[in-house]
């Protein structure tokens, strides 16, 4: 299965967290790699959605949607910062 990246789950994460999360900085609980969620390795149908560390492959996030609920497992993360929607005034 082809790996995508965190951009592919921007909508799903916004559903769960209530805000833009691809800009949030994640820290891997295994190797300590620190990078925006957008850059994580994402598998959409694992089954469920799995986000892995781009450096060591550790499973950071698992999201499973069933019967209208989304189960979220963030055990692999050491840290997850806050996301930031784009907010510069447009011309």
């Amino acid at each position, binding site marked *: 299965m*082809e790996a995508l990246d965190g951009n592919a789950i*921007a909508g799903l994460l*916004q*559903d769960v967290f209530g805000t*833009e999360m*691809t*800009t949030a900085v994640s820290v891997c609980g295994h190797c300590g790699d620190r990078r925006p969620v957008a850059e994580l390795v994402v598998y959409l149908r694992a089954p469920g959605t799995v986000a892995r560390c781009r450096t060591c492959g550790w499973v950071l996030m698992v999201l499973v949607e069933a019967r209208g609920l989304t189960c979220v497992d963030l055990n692999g993360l050491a840290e997850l910062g806050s996301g930031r929607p*784009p907010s510069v005034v*447009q011309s």
Partner: protein
Amino acid sequence: MARTAVRRRLTWQVATVTDVVDETARTRTIELEVSDWPGHFAGQHLDVRLTAEDGYRAERSYSIASAPGEPVAITVERLDDGEVSPYLTEELRVEDALELRGPIGGYFVWDGADSRPLLLVAGGSGIVPLRAILRHRERSGSGVPVRLLYSSRTLDDVIYRAELAEPPTGVEVVQTLTREQPEGWTGYARRVDPALLGEVAWPSEQMPLAFVCGPTNFVETVASGLVALGYPPARVKTERFGATGGR
């Protein structure tokens, strides 16, 4: 349009198709009227949802092809075994309704605040969000110099071909055709690799900002190639498309 994005839940809404334009044999641009659209940034995307008569639903994410302030548009590539893209590229007509939500994403976004040269690298339909960036640059009067490196299989696969043939001042378009080149082709004729990047990319001393979008393997090659050329990883924004009709 002065508008500040705030925290907002994503809600599905029904848009109306106002125009369809065939870009290539496999891709179509769909322009939409969205009554409750909060505005978007160049590089963001939106989710489309189709519901079958039996209630089965399929969702896909598509990059927004238009600049902020322009009517919302997406460009969709048809995948023959896709669940959503054949409908969008072959069945959907003007005045049809389409369920969507957005805008989505905040990482792969160019808002014009960064004044350094832009390097845009696209593989196939990865050109779509980069086209939104180009249009935003033009509409906002930005003078940021841009180099676009765009890789397609053949000339007939080039999306936005007419638009890219006449780039505005300050935008340099470099194309490569990897499978077949027409007679007299003056662009590149090979896959994007570190050597080609070395010829086309802005020198890292200019602190360029790079946006790379395309199939996963393409993005990996380009991103690691740019880092090898001295681009700081944080200055290389990436977005990977899958074979699922969007991302």
